């Protein structure tokens, strides 16, 4: 259930980054998530829904871009990036593989309305 603390981090970064645009509805938030984070998108959505109640972030859509894992096989030449947890080499089926990456989670961008709820840009 680390989705809830991830949601808290998202909210705090979004609030920080959109400080200059008070009252504007946040439309979508783009994240890059490593597969080792084992995030369940539905739980993240629920967490965002619950934690943003009554704010301009409520109702935003979360877009996830997946960061894969770099696999190299010790028994053949295969090097590839996979987007599901690897159990064995996809070429020779050897379990002797080495995996790198897929461990980070970053907020890439935020999409927000051009105007705030009063219909103006909200900027001084």
């Amino acid at each position, binding site marked *: *259930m*680390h989705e*809830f*603390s*991830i949601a808290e*981090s*998202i909210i*705090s*970064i979004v609030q920080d*980054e*959109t400080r200059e645009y008070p009252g504007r509805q946040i439309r979508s938030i783009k*994240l890059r998530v490593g597969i*080792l*984070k*084992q995030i369940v998108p539905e739980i993240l959505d629920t967490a965002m829904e619950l934690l943003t109640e009554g704010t301009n972030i409520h109702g935003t859509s979360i877009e996830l871009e997946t960061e894969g894992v770099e696999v190299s096989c010790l028994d053949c030449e295969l090097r590839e990036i996979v987007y599901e*947890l*690897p*159990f064995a080499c996809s070429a020779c089926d050897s*379990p*002797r*593989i*080495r*995996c790198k990456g897929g*461990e*980070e*989670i*970053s*907020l*890439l*961008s*935020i*999409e*927000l*309305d*051009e105007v705030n709820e009063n219909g103006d840009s909200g900027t001084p």
Partner: protein
Amino acid sequence: MEIQVLRRLEEKNKADADQIRALLNQHNVKCFNIMGSPGCGKTALLEHVLPPLQQRYRCAVLEGDLYTTQDAERIAGMGTTVIQLETQGSCHLDANLVMRGMQELNLDQLDIVFIENVGNLVCPANFDLGEHHRITVVSVTEGHDKPSKYPALFTKADIVLITKTDLLEHTNFDIHRAKESIRKFNDHAEIVETSIRSAPPAALVAFVLSIVD
């Protein structure tokens, strides 16, 4: 309009963790974060490694627990300073909570702090607690596929303990396959087999000593 951000979500926790490490370094204290699923034997390991370590070093334990103080009582019963970190239902410790625990300790009077994380195979991996080293525990009753299914807890481990090996004959746990799975995600950690019944965790004591000596 779109705002480009590119910020890591862990940045706040990481900053808190770096502060903890700085505080520990200032006091010359080494810190170990023990992680693993519920019941894998984290507290049992502590009960076995504390007595030999305490012959030469001053140790304290930060006990992460959802609601109860049972583990803390087991450790306190051994005369070790223990601070309870109650996560109030959250499935992991974070650096902020650990910092509060560290502030309750008299770091001048300590050499080693162990943090027993909340029993969980996924979430604790995401939170740097300011530790110097990570100890990951997996017991043979969990199945040898667990390192493949939950790799995050293993990638940054410095030592992995496969515990409860006295129960091996009652399970289908394949030690070789478990080690192979751990190696997929971590090619540097020492991997050792232990049992509090038949093979006390001397390797863990040796590992800790190799850091603090």
